[in-house]
């Protein structure tokens, strides 16, 4: 009985993030529009887009291979699983031990790998631009992320997120420089990974500046829908990651019962809203940078992460 309940909760979380993801995207867009003094589309616009895309037929390039058709499902699956493994409203769910933070980072890598391949598949120049730039960015963002993971696991003694979250609630954390550095690194990585300004502009229409969009130029219909959904899942993943690591308050523990779960869910949604707001503010307040400034941006992130880890390695012995 309890087991079934656990399965249920786990399923709920997977569904929840799937449902929340487009909303988050819409929320961010809406806030940005407001900040730009535009009315902008409704918060629910992404849902409409998705359903429209899903119903349209797919136009495949002649040179597209089976990989091009399989990739969206793979990407979606990898991202959904990754996102579902991040504690959202409750920690220590049934399958939370399936993969730790490193594995989640690697799952993101899997998604990216296939997305980049898909960009190369049709054999167009813009796809190539997108893929190569995406991989360049990733080759710096992923190490930075892992450095942040190091910092956390050195503090919490584990790389498993639920335990990390529980640990961050305890008093022994205190206020640490390393944490601040890690937070900064994670934010920068999140910006880069989600193709947000200043690294990339999700709303651009100028191909030469595109990174993420250039890769998916050839996609249409349901494939595009899946890609879009995966993108918003990724954004959600990073925001909930920030939430569960650096603001784990109000997170229900496993088996705390439906009421606690609901409370946790409400707090989680609030966190997401806040995160989206901050993101929109940040994006509107700065300008996009040249592609070849990105490596400096992310190099800084990497160095911050490394610095945090080093500080901990050293302070551990004191």
């Amino acid at each position, binding site marked *: 009985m309890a087991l079934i309940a656990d399965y249920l909760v786990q399923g709920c979380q997977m569904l929840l993030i799937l449902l929340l993801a487009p909303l988050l995207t819409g929320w961010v867009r809406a806030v940005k529009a407001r900040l730009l003094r535009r009315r902008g589309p409704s918060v629910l616009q992404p849902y409409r887009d998705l359903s429209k895309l899903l119903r349209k037929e797919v136009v495949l390039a002649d040179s597209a291979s089976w990989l091009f058709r399989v990739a969206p499902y793979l990407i979606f699956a990898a991202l959904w699983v990754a996102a579902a493994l991040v504690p959202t409203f409750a920690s220590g769910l049934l399958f939370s031990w399936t993969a730790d933070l490193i594995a989640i980072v690697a799952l993101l890598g899997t998604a990216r*790998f296939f997305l980049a391949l898909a960009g190369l598949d049709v054999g167009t120049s813009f796809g190539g631009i997108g*893929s190569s730039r995406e991989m360049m960015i990733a080759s*710096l963002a992923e*190490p930075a992320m892992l450095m942040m993971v190091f910092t956390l696991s050195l503090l919490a003694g584990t790389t*498993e997120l639920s335990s990390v979250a529980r640990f961050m609630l305890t008093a022994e954390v205190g206020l640490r420089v390393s944490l601040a550095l890690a937070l900064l690194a994670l934010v920068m990585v999140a910006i880069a990974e989600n193709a947000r300004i200043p690294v990339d502009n999700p709303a651009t229409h100028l191909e030469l500046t595109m990174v993420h969009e250039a890769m998916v130029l050839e996609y249409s219909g349901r494939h595009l829908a899946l890609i879009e959904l995966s993108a918003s899942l990724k954004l959600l993943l990073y925001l909930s990651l920030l939430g569960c690591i650096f603001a784990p308050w109000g997170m229900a523990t496993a088996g705390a019962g439906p009421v606690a779960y609901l409370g946790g869910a409400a707090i989680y949604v609030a966190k997401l809203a806040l995160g989206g707001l901050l993101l929109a503010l940040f994006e509107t307040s700065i300008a996009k940078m040249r592609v070849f400034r990105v490596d400096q941006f992310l190099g800084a992130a990497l160095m911050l992460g*490394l610095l945090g880890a080093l500080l901990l390695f050293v302070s551990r012995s004191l």
Partner: protein
Amino acid sequence: MPAGVRFATMSLPLLLGLPMLLLAVGVYAIAAAQRPEGGRQVYGIALFACVVLLALALGHLLAGRAPTTLTLPLGLPWLGAHFRLDALAAFFLIVVNLGGAVASLFALGYGQHERAPERVLPFFPAFLAGMNLVLLADDAFTFLFAWEFMSLSSWALVMAHHQEPANARAGYLYLVMACFGTLALLLAFGLLAGPDGGYGFAAIRAGTTSPGFAALVLVLTLLGAGSKAGLVPLHVWLPLAHPAAPSHVSALMSGVMTKVAVYGFIRIVFDLLGEPALWWWGGLVLALGGITAVLGVLYALMQHDLKRLLAYHTVENIGIIFIGLGLALAFQANQMYASAALALTAALFHVLNHSLFKSLLFLGTGAVLTATGERDMERLGGLIHPMPWTALAFLIGSAAISALPPLNGFVSEWLTFQAILISPELPQWLLKFLVPAVGALLALSAALAATCFVKAFGITFLGRPRSPAAAGAVETDRYSLSALFVLAALCLLAGILPGLVVDGLAPVVSLLNGGARLMAQHDRPWLTLVPVVDVKSTYNGLLVLLFMTLSGFTAAFLIHRLASNAARRGPAWDCGFPDANPAFQYTAGSFAQPIRRVFGSIVFQARERVMMPPPGDLRPARFEVKLRDPVWERGYAPVAHAVVALSSRFNYLQYLTIRRYLSLVFGALVVLLLGMVLWR
């Protein structure tokens, strides 16, 4: 259990008999090479021998038998040739013969296209035999004998297509570096054996070496085994020699022979040398590993020859393995055996993984080579259409080597990361700084590897064909395909059932680690991988795979059922200007360009020059990239120049007149007489 005992006593002679069989086949091949069915016979027998060896070694390892030894009246007369089968040897026997079996299977098809079979068939079994004998040897002479024999036979295979000057040069460099490595190992054994020549490994284990000598042995072993494994800066021969050989041999050299080198390092440093006396050993190996990993993958990214790219990638993976070994040394030096067990497991696991996916990738390249006759990615492309199965296998291999879950590459790197994460307990300050830095290097190399294989797979198999050869490709034969998919399946299996592999490695680890090993994994719920209990980090490839397939298929099912499943073919959109010409695609060079800008400009002093002719000038614009190899320019070229200069400097001594020669003798006499006078 008498049956097991009987097996144990007879297994070693059998194990030894099979390499002998392989040697005999090699001799037979000299005659059979000309006949058309000769190839199939040779490769068939090689396949058989490897499979039997594999089975025997598996039996020995899984049954956890005690080491068995055997002495033949060969080799050094007063010593004899000692052979020994213990867990370590058994594990590496599995790695070697797995690769050997698959390569032979592949060659059953691939070998038919060989231009010069008489230069391949005799040496291929000999190469396999040499590697097996290295693993079984139990005294210094036999070990080095087999080691050098292995180098020699592989050299012959590298020289198989000697008519291309590049290959001949590669072979030359390879053999010289091999000789260098052997001499280094020879010196190491000289120290271990002592002045009165106790060359038996048993005697060496029993004896003790002074700390200074032990450190010297470590350095020499790093030189000897490292040069064979491809540690930076001793790697220069590797990316030249491995691609020069026929592809199934490249697979063996890259996927398996480098592992034999790792075996040599482990055998000497962990087993023969016993307790590491000094913590900085670990630091040294660790730093070398980190540098090797990053430099290797950066080199690889700069290549557009597919086989050379793979060879450079071998360098990277060797670096990862040595990171694990270095951590293990550091832990052992501080008596942290539980942590050392984790690091060792990670390293050995990666040994197995790399042998799997690197062989897979090289064999896939071989299939591409037979289909198109091209190794240069700039002239390939779109191969996924004519050869989808090869593409699928190659894709799995690429994903595995890029450490993507749920495949096996990720598991070993995950274990390595876990080993790094429990290392702040190390007391030495240098290590405290070194370990996280190496961790960053490891993360960097992992990310770059993904980039590298997006490039390798994407440019070779995706897009549109860049040359008629690529356009006219056809799917490869069924032997090759079966070989490819055996490896692909193993990559997946090792990825989703890592716990079983870890349990299989446990005897090896406890052998090298003073009895300490990781806890048993096979009884975990859902076969979850739990390296260390108090660190609650866990990973379960099986479930990850399960969830991904589940979610992917549900999504596909729902969408196709509820939403549209219509699809239409049309020209590529490409923002409104579809380019007819395949030359407009991104090439390997252009794909790597951002990386080249970011990293290459530091490491290789990469310089890009665009020569745009003035208006009215009809010459095409040109784009040039200049890369300089720091290791070669700083390390090797000076030595070569010095030798040439010296030999030219002394060459005049060949042309003196008799009187001068007489005065040489006279001088020698007078000097010696004076010496006599003064000596008294």
